[in-house]
């Protein structure tokens, strides 16, 4: 049969294939990645340079390169400065990068799972769940897993909260934005209340101290020992998610369409829940609840490179890392010598952004 549409393929098909499949005005993807990478490096340099003792960016890199190989830079700085860079500021900047990248990536994944661009680890109560897990461990200390006890407790809390919110929002029909946000906020409130109660009734003054840090969200006093667990979990988690980016795309098509495209939706979602809870658990255990990073970064990234997770996830990780380094820099320097918990800053920026998104969606 000579179909109406048939000749078109041979005419334009092959020539159009070579043309960019994304005519919408966007920067080339490698350039975006390079720019985001540069942003992270610049932010990190500034983050290490700034503080009560100012260190020039050149000296920052001198100290870092000297550590990599002594021949790369001559030590013209005092040992105190080297200690400040190596033991105080570098671990903190690296932790900011890991936490920011992890929150941003988790936000993007949660948005795909619930098919709603208004999801965020804090808005969905996942961070509060992790916090309750962490507080429980401080109040009733068990050290079965050594250094891993705290992140594991936070992971357990995060997973429980995530599953709870997901099924609350889904029960009795379609998961609308309103149901999702209400379920998340209510769960977060209850869990935060549980954490507060545990802290107040506890005799241990250390409990109150660490709980306050978790609730406000902050990265003060970061050391190398705090860094390596969240950094490793975020790196491994992001790598795993990159391998899952095609099925993540299918989730955007809807549950049935994803099933028809060969995805075992239930199993995949369960795996994502565990992965996200692991990452959020590891993050919250060191930084507490830092909100809205996971909401804002994915949006910005989708505007830059589109929604395809194969392209969006790496960009989200880089942008999240750069953003949180800058936010933490502001948190330390705005009212120095005092420090603002960085979670307060991200909420000040993120809250209005969230409302703006809600309005825009309602308008459509």
């Amino acid at each position, binding site marked *: *049969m000579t*179909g*109406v*549409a*048939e000749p*078109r*393929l041979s005419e*334009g*098909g*092959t020539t*159009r*294939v070579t043309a*960019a*499949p*994304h*005519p*919408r005005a966007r920067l080339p993807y490698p350039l975006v990645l390079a720019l985001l990478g540069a942003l992270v490096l610049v932010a990190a340099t500034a983050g290490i340079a700034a503080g009560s003792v100012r260190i020039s960016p050149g000296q920052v890199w001198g100290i870092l390169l000297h550590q990599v190989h002594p021949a790369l830079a001559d030590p013209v700085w005092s040992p105190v400065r080297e200690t400040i860079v190596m033991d105080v500021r570098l671990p903190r900047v690296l932790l900011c990068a890991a936490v920011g990248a992890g929150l941003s990536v988790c936000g993007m994944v949660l*948005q795909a799972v619930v*098919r*709603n*661009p208004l999801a965020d680890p804090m808005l969905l109560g996942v961070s509060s769940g992790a916090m309750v897990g962490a507080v429980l461990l401080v109040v009733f200390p068990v050290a079965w897993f050594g250094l891993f006890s705290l992140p594991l407790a936070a992971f357990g809390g995060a997973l429980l909260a995530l599953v709870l919110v997901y099924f609350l929002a889904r029960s009795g029909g379609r998961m609308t934005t309103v149901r999702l946000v209400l379920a998340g906020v209510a769960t977060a409130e209850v869990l935060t209340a549980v954490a507060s109660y545990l802290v107040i009734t506890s005799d241990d003054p250390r409990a109150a101290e660490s709980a306050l840090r978790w609730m406000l969200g902050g990265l003060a006093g970061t050391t190398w020992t705090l860094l390596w667990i969240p950094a490793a979990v975020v790196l491994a988690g992001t790598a795993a998610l*990159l*391998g*899952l980016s*095609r*099925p993540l*795309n*299918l989730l*955007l*098509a*809807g*549950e*049935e*369409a994803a*099933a*028809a*495209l*060969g*995805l*075992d939706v239930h199993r995949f979602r369960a795996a994502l829940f565990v992965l996200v809870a692991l990452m959020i658990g590891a993050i919250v255990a060191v930084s507490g609840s830092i909100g809205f990073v996971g909401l804002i970064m994915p949006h910005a990234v*989708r*505007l830059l490179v*589109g*929604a*395809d997770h*194969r392209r969006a996830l790496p960009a989200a990780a880089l942008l999240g890392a750069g953003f949180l380094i800058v936010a933490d820099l502001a948190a330390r320097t705005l009212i120095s010598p005092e420090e603002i918990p960085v979670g307060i800053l991200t909420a000040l920026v993120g809250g209005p952004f969230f409302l703006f998104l809600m309005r825009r*969606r309602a308008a459509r």
Partner: protein
Amino acid sequence: MTAPLAGTLQAERVTVVIDGRPLLEAVSLAAAPAEIVGLVGPNGAGKSTLLRTLYRARRPTSGRVLLDGEDIWRMPGRRLARRLAAVLQETPGDFELTVYDVVAMGRTPHKRAFQGDDAADREIIVGSLAELEAAHLVGAPFDRLSGGEKQRVLIARALAQRTGVLVLDEPTNHLDLRHQIDALRLVRRLGVTTVVALHDLNLAASFCDRLHVLNAGRTVVSGPPGDVLTPQLLADVYRVDAEVVEHPRSGHPQITVLPDSNPEKWRADDLDFA
């Protein structure tokens, strides 16, 4: 483009019970290679439920679905998706997906983790869109397409899966007359086994080799359109008084509903005016 091998799709006494309510009761259906089977019936007859069991979105409570003799519920989803594609009513929304992104999803069953789209994939993606006269939309944001354009993109996604069997749930919804005809003509030209739910009985009569009529979760009759579409069936199943004539030029049965007879038999929920 090499045509995929058309398969045989069979539903064997498929029963679906949800919350104690039977939606399908022992429905059997068979589509031979390259056959186009139209699934028709009033709203709530169980058409979508039956299709769901075919594209592996709902497991039958009892009964089996066989693709070339193999139980689809015993094979990995990916393997099925390489041999059977579906066009559903569900559309992706709210994210900044381009038309290219949406059609590229159709390549997923053929790909491993970390494997990118190669030139052949891109050719299939753009080629599938071109088949639906939608190649010019390739970079457009999917969100902002019209209903008809979205529908064509979703059909292109199923084509990009390069399967020998298609399951289509109301693929002509939202399409204007010419695009309805074009879409069904394309399906016929592809030469793949097709099970398609259609509301428009005249359209179904002109394009399907066989019609399978469902009502209240049961098979009423199955056969060539000329045998199936009788005034008696339309009265029993759709509760309308209709005349069926053979069209003088096409030879297909054509239905004309007579509007002002037996109005008391009409029930609003059984009719679809859309």
